[in-house]
């Protein structure tokens, strides 16, 4: 039993990195967006250099991909294949399974950052007066909020519907969250809604702590509220089979 948790964790990480579609999502797309839009300056990224705007946004996107989309899709299929049910009658138990899954999401994020951060520096990213501690806090809150969202989808919807919903939500949040272009480009009402989303809050937080700009308090508050609310809701609505 002592080997169960580390083994479960290692298996979850291996299975995530083995799935082509999740690799595309957690590494492929962030890499593509980072390289393409920092070298081809077509996006309205504000007055500064585009890489300085893009790098924190892409890190936020990476967090959202790993903790929401990838987690939701894999957990949804595991639920429909009876994996979660079957693991429920082993000594591993549900709490350990949840811990292993959270650990796997964090491990995947470390892999993402290990690739994306050096690449961003290579592309000329020059964070001014960065607070790395603040970035870690933002990533922790964002991961919690998105993982909760992902588990709400995975725990309630049929596997195929969940797959579509997770991908759809990813696309919507990507487009209206200021990850790749400034929210100022959105019409007023849309901008107001977008500011309440966890994705834009995370992007704002990361952009703030990794530059000399002040981080809006609103972004921290919005992110923290999501980080508390979604896990609570997920725990209440999740169906294991």
């Amino acid at each position, binding site marked *: *039993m002592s*080997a*169960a948790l580390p*083994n*479960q964790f290692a*298996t979850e990480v*291996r*299975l995530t990195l*083995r*799935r082509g579609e999740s690799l595309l999502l957690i590494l492929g797309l962030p890499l593509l967006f980072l390289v393409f839009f920092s070298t081809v300056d077509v996006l309205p990224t504000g007055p500064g250099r585009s890489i300085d705007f893009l790098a924190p946004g892409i890190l936020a996107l990476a967090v959202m991909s790993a903790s929401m989309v990838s987690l939701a899709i894999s957990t949804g*299929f*595991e639920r429909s*294949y*009876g*994996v979660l*049910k*079957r693991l*429920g*009658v*082993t*000594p*591993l*138990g549900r709490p350990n399974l949840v811990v292993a899954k959270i650990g796997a999401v964090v491990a995947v994020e470390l892999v993402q950052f290990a690739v994306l951060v050096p690449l961003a520096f290579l592309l000329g990213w020059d964070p001014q007066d960065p607070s790395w501690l603040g970035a870690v806090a933002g990533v922790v809150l964002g991961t919690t909020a998105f993982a909760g969202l992902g588990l709400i989808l995975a725990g309630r919807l049929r596997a195929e519907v969940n797959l579509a919903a997770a991908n759809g939500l990813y696309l919507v949040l990507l487009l209206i969250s200021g990850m790749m272009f400034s929210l100022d480009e959105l019409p007023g009402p849309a901008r107001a809604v977008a500011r309440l989303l966890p994705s834009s809050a995370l992007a704002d937080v990361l952009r703030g702590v990794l530059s000399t700009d002040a981080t809006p308090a609103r972004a921290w508050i919005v992110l923290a509220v999501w980080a508390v609310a979604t896990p609570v809701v997920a725990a209440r609505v999740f169906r294991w*089979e």
Partner: protein
Amino acid sequence: MTAAVEVRDAVIRYGALVAVSELSFRAEPGQVTALLGPNGAGKTSIVEACEGFRRLDAGTVRVLGLDPVADHAALTERLGAMLQQGGVYPGIRVGEAVRLFCSYYDSARDPDSLVELVGLTDRARSTWRQLSGGEQQRLSLALALSGRPDVLFLDEPTASVDVAGRQRVRSIIRSEAERGACVVLTTHELEEAERLADHVVIIDHGAMVASGTPGELTRSMQTDEFRFGAAPGLDVASLGAALGVIVSESSPGEYLVSTPPTPGAVAAVTAWLAERDLPLADLRAGRKRLEDVYLALTAETSVATAARLTRRQRRRAGKGSS
């Protein structure tokens, strides 16, 4: 000896549907107990209650003396389970899955020999998704065995397994019982129950219709008559007098002798025919197979259910017209 699994007056409902209705049975350690019944009889429901997946609406379940829901954590170390389907990460490799499951248990088996036991050594690097249906079942069986369980619940363990695989699965299940484990399996196949089980519980419409060893069940329906075929219009009174029992011609050329088919009785019939130079067309006797018992029993409950339904429909129809 206390039973490893004891189900008493179990009731499981899904809304208005009664899946299990006052079902009671026991399963002993060192034995294979088969829950036999047609699809939809409630077999999976009761097994899932034993595994702790669902609560009973009434009645009690004890597994190794424990409540499967309340004492779930204490039970998992000693319990092995094979779901009717799935239960394995689609992208996991055979070897990985077995090693992972073996890491869950204190008294785990050796992963490599477990893979060999179920005959998947040459598939050890294939993922679940790449396995055939039968291979998936064998991997599920291996995972169920990984902790040397004291109780094994196997839901349709040989479904979609090919003939050679079935032999292997059956011999593994037998050796688990010989090791002392209590094995409870569900099946809708008579052959499976007849070959594998020490104890058979026949379930239909959620209720037990019969239980016993395969031998007891067939003996309970032991035939006390035999039939033979010969030319029509024989003098059954004369034959009956010669045998000292009643003989009747059930249909032209088809005779029913109302006595157990002892060698003496059979010899008397053939001697009587020989005296009259009459050829014997055929002779049918012997035990009924479990299949006959099963079909007779499940047919009875179906007729009873049909009768109940008709009454209810009639009542409803009556109400509608009044």
